[in-house]
């Protein structure tokens, strides 16, 4: 039995264990993100959102999942069977594959590749095949048109998002996700403060890359019915759905790792360098927060109309209580455990904050027209990203060569880039009128 725990095997078992955890938790998380989206949407639209299945609609995702499993899975007769079956698979596998390098906690990372970020970008760019083949295989004029449009959108916004990331990479100096977070820890400042425009460009790019919010044109209801997903139904359709939400979480994860300091707690470096009181408020914050949620659940439980909802609400309360206990307990355990558990909490908090912005955009902005969307991508975002990259590089150089502090030079860079952005937006009015050809 001894050799079972040899380091090489352990190096193999732990990642597999993490992988299993992630793949198991992901569909559940995607489901609850859908619920979060519907609840936030309802809240913004002066209504309640799903309230019927479980207390406050908490069991809605399970109900959706069961419905999707039971729904009939139709394959159009002249569709290309192999491709029709393969396309959603490609989409989902690529989406799940990208989790390999995502650092949820200091220890909780499946594989710390030294080309971590590039790996995630490469794999998520393969997701296009899922969409294109799906559109083509369903053999309908509309879905092909939708698929090609979304592929064109993905390709053009990937460049913009990539350039946005590179500007953060300059500061980090390494591609491995763990090193990037550590770089932010060493420099004591999240990269969002050094290169906010890069963050903005990446955010816009990532929204477009996951076909969401103002850029969800490929499945714009009014023109192309449901884009490449039109012919899919039942479980196959839910694979696409899962891929979309998994992509959303990945994109949020990348943004958190690169710009918002991954699993680092706010003011992490100050906490460690200046001993001060050992347990600062910020350490206790996660535990208190989850405790608050638990109390709220217990408060609400008796008021639920249906008996089953009371029980479920109670269970949710107990679950939150357990998490709060774990968070509080880890305060007294060794710092490694503390960083691990709290790191995961902070990582998830930032991811959900980032996703909240996704949802917020979706319910406030109308939809871009396809030509405006492409023009915005090519004539505004990519040039701006290039300029941002150059100014950031110059700022970095200045701080290294002439010893100015990076904060000063980065502010200079930001001001310069904003100037260029204004100029870009002004002279080529991004939403200028489509030149209407003089017809008879």
């Amino acid at each position, binding site marked *: 039995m001894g050799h079972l725990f040899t380091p090489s095997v352990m190096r193999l078992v732990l990642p597999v264990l993490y992988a299993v955890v992630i793949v198991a938790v992901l569909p559940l998380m995607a489901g609850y993100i859908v619920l979060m989206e519907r609840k936030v*949407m309802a809240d*913004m*639209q*002066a*209504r309640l959102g799903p309230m019927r299945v479980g207390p406050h609609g908490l069991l809605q995702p399970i109900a959706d999942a069961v419905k999707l499993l039971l729904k009939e899975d139709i394959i159009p007769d002249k569709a290309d069977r192999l491709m029709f079956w393969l396309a959603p698979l490609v989409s989902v596998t690529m989406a799940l594959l990208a989790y390999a390098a995502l650092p949820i906690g200091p220890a909780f990372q499946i594989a710390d590749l030294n080309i971590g970020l590039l790996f995630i970008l490469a794999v998520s760019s393969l997701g296009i095949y899922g969409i294109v083949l799906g559109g083509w295989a369903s053999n309908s*004029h*509309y879905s092909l048109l939708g698929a090609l449009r979304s592929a064109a959108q993905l390709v053009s916004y990937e460049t913009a998002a990539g350039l946005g990331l590179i500007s953060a990479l300059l500061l980090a100096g390494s591609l491995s996700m763990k090193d990037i977070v550590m770089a932010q820890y060493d420099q004591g400042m999240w990269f969002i403060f050094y290169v906010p425009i890069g963050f903005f460009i990446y955010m816009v790019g990532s929204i477009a890359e996951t076909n969401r919010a*103002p850029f*969800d044109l490929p499945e*714009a*209801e*009014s*023109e192309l019915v449901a884009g490449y997903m039109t012919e899919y139904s039942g479980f196959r359709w839910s694979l696409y759905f899962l891929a979309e939400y998994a992509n959303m979480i990945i994109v949020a994860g990348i943004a958190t790792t690169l710009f918002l300091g991954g699993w680092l707690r706010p003011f992490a470096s100050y906490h460690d360098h200046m001993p001060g009181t050992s347990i600062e408020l910020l350490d206790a914050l996660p535990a208190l927060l989850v405790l608050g949620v638990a109390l709220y659940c217990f408060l609400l439980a008796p008021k639920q109309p249906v008996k089953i909802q009371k029980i479920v609400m109670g269970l949710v309360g107990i679950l939150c209580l357990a998490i709060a206990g774990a968070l509080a307990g880890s305060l007294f355990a060794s710092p490694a455990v503390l960083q691990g558990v709290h790191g995961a909490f902070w990582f998830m908090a930032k991811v959900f904050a980032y996703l909240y912005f996704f949802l917020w955009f*979706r*319910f*406030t*902005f*109308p*939809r*871009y*027209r*396809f*030509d*405006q969307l492409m023009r915005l991508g090519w004539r505004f975002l990519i040039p701006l990203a290039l300029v941002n990259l150059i100014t950031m590089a110059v700022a970095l150089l200045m701080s290294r060569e002439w010893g100015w502090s990076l904060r000063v030079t980065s502010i200079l860079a930001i001001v310069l880039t904003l100037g260029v952005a204004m100029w870009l937006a002004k002279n080529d009015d*991004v*939403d200028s*009128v*489509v030149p*209407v*050809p003089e*017809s008879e």
Partner: protein
Amino acid sequence: MSDPRTTELTNVSTTVLGADEIILNMGPQHPSTHGVLRVKLRLDGERVVDSECIIGYLHRGVEKIAEHRSYQQFAPYVDRMDYVAAVSNGLGYCEAVEKLLGTEAPIRARVVRTILTELQRIASHLLWLGTHALDIGALTPVFYCFREREEILKIFEKYCGARLTTHAFRIGGLQYETYDGFEQDVKRFCDDFAHRIDEYETLLTENRIWVGRTKGVGILSAADAIALGVTGPVLRASGVKWDLRKAMPYAAYDLYKFEIPTRETGDTYDRYVVRMEEMRQSRLICLQAIENIPTGPIMARIGKVLKPPPGEVYHSIEAPKGELGYYIVSDGTTQPYRVRVRPPSFINLQALDKMARGSLVADVVAIIGTIDIVLGEVDR
């Protein structure tokens, strides 16, 4: 009998015309055609070469029915034409018949009619704003608009028992006295509505994407508008300052002060701004009106059986969609000889081809929304 148009309808006919032109069918079951309207678009790539509207799916022969009903009995049918602005339909019809009889509703009835019609104008514009924003992709305004519209429908329900097809007015005046608290309800709505409409403005007016999707889309010049007989907000957005409430005042509009909003370029954005401003003006009218609703009878002294002397009359009002006119010919019996309704949506829709030509497919959706048509009125 199987109507060939419905069978050929559902499949996407991609008959290739000319170089790479295709025919794209929008509707009649299309989420954004506001009812059963089918638009046949001839596309060159993404650009619309020309469009042809195929209507008639909701034709119920209202004008034929009118010839077999008495004047009072036909009044409820009028609500079913533009079912979004039923109150103003009723006002138009009742005033036309009153003119035919040569009488006039008493001042109290005219004032209450003005208030209810202006509330109906706000409700109709709210429904337009909600669905128009939804077509262009903004998911939130529709819920805000319907929340406000609900308040108005409550007032209607309290007054005449119905929310949509209200049949609120009778020929010669009003059937019901205003319920206790009518003024308070209208006042509460108007006070609350002031900052609500600012909410919509913050959400849309300066929104870069909204401006991008609506500015310069579906332009209609003033000359084209007049030539095509377009009326209402669409005409005013093209720069013609003309509103029947000012040009030929009816009901009690000459007693109140209000502005006529107009814009210059006549594109989708201008029509949006004109309608938003109109909602504000309607609110002002309501506020002025409920200050003092004159007392007095609510029904003119016309007998129970209406037999207008032979002759004809044309009377039109400013409905939310445009000039809604009634041309009634009477032959002295209790049933009208001929009732012709001048439907603003029908004539405004004719301008769709002029606006859509040269725009993109995504814009056609916005243009149909901005003309603000209701198919019940287009088809009658």
